[in-house]
């Protein structure tokens, strides 16, 4: 196990905390806990678990949006999120199997899942245009945070070259999702939205039924 400066992990968790309402206060604690044995660095099994959790969170968000969104472009974006993150998860699982890496749950992965569900429940109460805008805003924030985590935490800590390569291959996908979400966000603001959706309002998702 390599030792990494704990501030890197703290930065990562703080970035993820942006996505997760109510997570910020727990960020420091999560940072302290996330490292194995307090070393502050993530192991490959932990990285695999974070990748799987991050994809799962956005798949569930996409399933909810696929059902609830009213704007056809938002619905299509949601479908793309489900498709792409499912593909990324499948490749992660295949690689983990090939490398004999058993994804290991950790505070960062757990927080992603827990806060993802909380946000999904909260957004699930919104309807129509308010829901569409809240979902797209949350996707912008989420993918920004995930990109930051990939760059600052996951890629630097990945030990296995194939796992590192997978992360490097996934990065442009996340970046494209971010650009796509921003485009939608701007388009919706132009259509008449106020664009005043609070950035704290983050993550949607719900184990909604696929269409």
């Amino acid at each position, binding site marked *: 196990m390599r030792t990494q400066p704990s501030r890197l992990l703290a930065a990562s968790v703080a970035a993820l905390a942006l996505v997760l309402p109510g997570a910020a206060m727990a960020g420091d604690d999560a940072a302290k806990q996330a490292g194995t044995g307090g070393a502050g660095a993530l192991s490959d099994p932990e990285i695999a678990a974070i990748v799987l959790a991050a994809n799962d969170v956005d798949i569930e968000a996409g399933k909810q949006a696929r059902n609830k969104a009213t704007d056809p472009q938002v619905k299509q974006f949601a479908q793309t999120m489900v*498709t*792409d993150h499912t593909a990324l998860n499948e490749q992660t699982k295949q690689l983990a199997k090939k490398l004999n890496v058993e994804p290991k749950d950790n505070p960062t992965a757990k927080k992603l899942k827990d806060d993802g569900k909380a946000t999904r429940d909260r957004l699930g109460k919104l309807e129509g245009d308010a829901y569409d805008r809240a979902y797209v805003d949350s996707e912008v924030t989420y993918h920004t945070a995930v990109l930051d985590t990939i760059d600052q935490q996951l890629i630097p800590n990945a030990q296995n070259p194939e796992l590192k390569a997978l992360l490097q291959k996934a990065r*442009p*996908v996340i970046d*494209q999702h971010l650009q*796509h979400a921003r485009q939608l966000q701007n388009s919706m603001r132009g259509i008449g939205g106020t664009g005043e959706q609070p950035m704290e309002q983050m993550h949607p998702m719900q184990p909604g039924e696929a269409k």
Partner: protein
Amino acid sequence: MRATLLAVAVGAASLMLAVEADAAEHRVEIRDFAYSPTPLNVAVGDTVIFSNHDPVPHTVTDRAGAFDSGQIESGSSWTFTATQAGEFTYYCTLHPRMEGNLAVK
């Protein structure tokens, strides 16, 4: 009679070979959420192989509805045979920011 039949058969086979020989094969690589090369000029009868090198699926879908690959999974390819002349603008239904152009003459 037999010789005539043989001559006709050989003639037909030659014609088929000639057509096949004239049909060119082109390749479009899908990488980093972009089609390359684009624009691409081909002739009627040519084939275009679209190969997806990204870790997520893409499509090659004509905006006017002339063709649609359906999902091309990561590491897979789709072969398009140009059967009609025209100028086509295609895109990815999953990632609408991706767009390419194909001219069939």
